[in-house]
């Protein structure tokens, strides 16, 4: 049995041996290197770009600017439905006429080496007319604000008005209103991006190594932009050092590098450096919530009234407005609150454009909602867990329709027993046990966050399974992998259904050349949709093998059975045939089954091969989770130390518990980074002031508390055959909320701790301090 086993990962050996093949490890003969010259200004009009000196530098092959772009090139398309028309805000691969953030590509320099390309970049003469930089959404909305785009700084305004919020607010016994800010930070995978494009001029074929996440979508988008046939472009995912939402989207470079390779007729490689990454990769979060939550005298939450302002940066990219959209659609969380109003605004500024980062919108919304609920509990004098417990959606109310929608899909929680999981979580943590409030002058606090994480979104996934004559199983998945362990997880599913050992199953992914259609990896979807595609294809392979054996050996199919990678008849001691033998018999041209071949189609002998496309149910699978934390706070300095951390969640069904735990613990680490350390700050000129790892602090080993994951398989997903729910985003989703609540509890404060990150200074500010006191 492979499903449910904590099997060590098949991909690990190559990484541990230093034999992973990441994009910077790829090279081709005659290859040249590209460097992107980026805008030093946040906002400026381009007057001219002087290239003479740069082109004269030995070793420089080309410098491409917007003048070189093809006539009629469209901007980079947004791949997700948006609220309203955001097309005026889309980005072109190179700035046209105006730059809108520091780091916006203005030229591509191709040279023998990256170092020479950087030398040449210093010789390009940029004649730009600086304009005032818009760096703050509130300022951007002022009447006399500088306009980032002609279409105006307010890109979108939408919302919901469910039930009777005004009535509920009027009738409320208790009410809390507050503002919560979630700072700009981002995914920051340890490997930067990179691409290697090779154009075979004679054949007109373009191979691109380096894309990931949504390679089929990206390939199709590039085909449109380059006016090429889709199958003439092949995107191939190498080993990828993390994405967490940001990496693998279609960025300007995803056009520019292939374009340069075509122009130069030479392989062109671009390896992003870390400083570029800071300016170029999608940023995320960066929003402000104004939340009012109302409750009646019994502690029933009667309304959420929310305003949400999101800083989108300089352009709308491939993710559109999905981040605030998710935040808005799921704001009510696991509570059965029918009166919900949202007024959401998306605002353009002169900063790096934004997109998703693990638990997009949810990390943010959970922080705002759960901090507000703690405030409410405090105001009511009700125990915090009790208030939450009282308001949870009940099992008999499943599936729960929130009444909202995001990216044109209704928000529905398919299944779950929230109160049961909640009770188990609080019991396991010892929530209601008394705890020592003071330890060596430090104060201890306890906090929690209850949340629902949607998972498994996106339309479909594809897979082809091929069994060869040696009984080896090759899975060609349309999904991709940035480190999550899909090569193991998908193999486990096929191994289980086809009863072949894991060693005989190989998974390939992220390659448009191996399967015609693919969905990709995002929204914690691969185990669910990719997994179910493998599951369904594996079942078809089994059926096909049994059917072939039945025909070959003249045994009724009901009497045959697939076990240990072979076909068995009843209780016989010997198998009828191994699965590899069946694969051989089904090879085109083989006559063991089809004994009198006729010319033309050979419908049966098309190999032991099955292609399967599985549609996702649009609601996905809802994971209920509770985050719990004990935090120590030094009231003298504002230092904090998370003592212990627990995530309890119901994932329906685990395929590999070891990987599930790894996803949760790693996710908590990212959540802690967003809670305490990471921030992308800009100065008034629109310059990023935390643009290296020296200033942008990510958690190191000393920042990690012991994390316990408590995983339940209580309510299998009702929206997929395996019953699995995605676990990729549960980890970070509730961290800021649980930790923020714990710190507030430690300090006994009802103000502050509304603004992330919770630096020592902010913690101290929450209790107010006097200098020198």
């Amino acid at each position: 049995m492979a499903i449910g086993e904590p099997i060590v990962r098949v991909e690990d050996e190559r990484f541990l041996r230093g034999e992973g093949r990441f994009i910077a490890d790829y090279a081709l003969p005659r290859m040249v290197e590209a460097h992107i010259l980026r805008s030093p200004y946040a906002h400026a009009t381009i007057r001219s770009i002087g290239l003479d000196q740069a082109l004269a530098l030995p070793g420089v092959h080309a410098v491409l600017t917007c003048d070189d772009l093809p006539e009629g090139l469209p901007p980079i398309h947004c791949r997700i439905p948006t609220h309203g028309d955001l097309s005026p805000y889309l980005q072109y691969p190179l700035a046209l006429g105006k730059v809108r953030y520091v780091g916006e590509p203005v030229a591509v320099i191709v040279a023998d080496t990256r170092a020479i390309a950087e030398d040449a970049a210093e010789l390009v003469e940029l004649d730009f007319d600086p304009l005032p930089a818009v760096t703050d959404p509130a300022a951007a909305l002022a009447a006399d604000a500088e306009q980032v785009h002609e279409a105006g700084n307010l890109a979108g305004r939408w919302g919901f008005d469910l039930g009777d919020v005004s009535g509920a607010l009027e009738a409320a016994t208790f009410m809390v209103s507050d503002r919560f800010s979630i700072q700009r930070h981002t995914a920051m995978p340890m490997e930067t991006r990179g691409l290697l494009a090779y154009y075979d001029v004679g054949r007109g074929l373009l191979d691109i190594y380096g894309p990931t996440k949504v390679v089929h979508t990206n390939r199709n988008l590039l085909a449109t932009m380059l006016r090429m046939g889709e199958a003439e472009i092949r995107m191939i995912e190498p080993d990828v050092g993390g994405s967490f939402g940001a990496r693998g989207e279609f960025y300007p470079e995803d056009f520019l590098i292939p374009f340069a390779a075509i122009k130069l007729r030479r392989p062109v490689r671009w390896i992003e450096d870390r400083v570029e990454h800071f300016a170029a990769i999608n940023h995320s979060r960066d929003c402000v919530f104004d939340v009012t939550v109302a409750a009646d005298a019994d502690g029933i939450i009667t309304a959420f009234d929310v305003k949400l302002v999101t800083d989108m940066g300089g352009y709308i990219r491939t993710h559109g407005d999905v981040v605030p959209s998710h935040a808005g659609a799921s704001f009510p969380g696991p509570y059965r609150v029918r009166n919900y109003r949202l007024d959401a605004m998306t605002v353009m500024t002169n900063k790096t454009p934004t997109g998703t980062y693990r638990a997009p919108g949810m990390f943010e919304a959970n922080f705002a909602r759960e901090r507000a609920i703690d405030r409410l509990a405090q105001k009511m004098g009700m125990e915090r867990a009790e208030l939450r417990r009282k308001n949870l959606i009940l099992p008999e109310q499943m599936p729960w329709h929130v009444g909202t929608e995001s990216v044109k899909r209704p928000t529905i929680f398919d299944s779950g027993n929230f109160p049961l999981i909640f009770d188990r979580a609080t019991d396991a943590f010892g929530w209601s046990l008394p705890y020592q409030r003071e330890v060596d002058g430090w104060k201890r606090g306890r906090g929690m966050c209850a949340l629902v994480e949607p998972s498994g979104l996106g339309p479909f996934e594809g897979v082809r399974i091929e069994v060869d004559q040696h009984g080896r199983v090759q899975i060609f998945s349309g999904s991709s992998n940035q480190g999550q362990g899909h090569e193991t997880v998908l193999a486990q599913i096929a191994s289980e259904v086809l009863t072949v050992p894991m060693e005989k199953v190989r998974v390939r992914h992220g390659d448009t050349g191996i399967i015609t259609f693919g969905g990709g990896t995002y929204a914690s979807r691969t185990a669910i949709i990719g997994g179910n595609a493998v599951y369904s294809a594996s079942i078809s392979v089994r059926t096909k093998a049994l059917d072939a054996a039945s025909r070959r050996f003249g045994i009724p199919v009901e009497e045959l059975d697939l076990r240990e990678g072979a076909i068995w008849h009843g209780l016989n001691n010997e198998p009828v045939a191994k699965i590899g033998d069946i694969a051989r018999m089904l090879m085109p041209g083989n006559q063991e089954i089809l004994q009198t071949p006729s010319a033309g189609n050979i419908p049966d002998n098309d190999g032991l091969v099955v292609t399967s496309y599985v549609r996702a149910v649009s609601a996905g699978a809802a994971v209920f989770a509770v985050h719990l934390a004990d935090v120590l706070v030094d009231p003298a300095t504002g230092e904090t130390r998370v003592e212990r951390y627990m995530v309890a969640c119901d994932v329906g069904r685990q395929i590999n518990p070891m990987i599930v735990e790894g996803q949760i613990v790693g996710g908590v680490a990212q959540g802690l980074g967003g809670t305490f350390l990471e921030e992308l700050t800009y100065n008034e000129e629109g310059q990023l002031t935390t643009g290296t790892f020296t200033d942008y602090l990510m958690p190191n080993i000393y920042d990690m508390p012991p994390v316990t994951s408590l995983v339940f398989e209580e309510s299998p997903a009702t929206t997929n055959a395996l019953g699995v729910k995605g676990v990729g985003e549960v980890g970070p989703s509730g961290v800021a909320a649980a930790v923020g609540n714990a710190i507030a509890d430690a300090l006994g404060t009802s103000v502050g701790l509304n603004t992330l990150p919770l630096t020592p200074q902010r913690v101290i500010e929450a209790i107010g301090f006097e200098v020198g006191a």
Partner: protein
Amino acid sequence: MNKRRVDLTVNNRAVSMMVEPRLSLADALRGELGLTGTHLGCEHGVCGACTIIVDSDPVRGCLMLAVQAEGAEIVTIEGATPVVGLSEIQAALREFHGLQCGFCTPGMVMVLHHLFSNNPVPSDSEIREALSGQLCRCTGYQGIVNAAKAVAARHMHQNVQPRETSQDHRE
């Protein structure tokens, strides 16, 4: 550009390379010698992905110039890996799920390799300190620490002694 010849020992093999002074040691190992197991996550000395062993010390490969490695003895992930299979540390990292994307992994393996060579039974705090300069975005470090603790526990059980006489750092 004026290239220099650098002679050094990498993974027990004498090699020489012609490099520009501005080339980092990590770039040289990767580009000139094809040892792409050493990764670059930041090129400014913070992430630790490029960590290699230079003359018995763990060192940031991105913060040394290749020309500075003249005469040095270097061990990279390729040299810390058995011909087939995994070293004890590598196997423990797999067993305890101490890696996800694998990008930080060579650096992690190198600092642990160095730690255990000099100190077969490190304490928990010595393990943490050894790993403190290595960033991992995927794992939250828990699996990595658990792997190292398991190796230490095994060594304690087997009474393992330091593999190499560690260079005496004391005066």
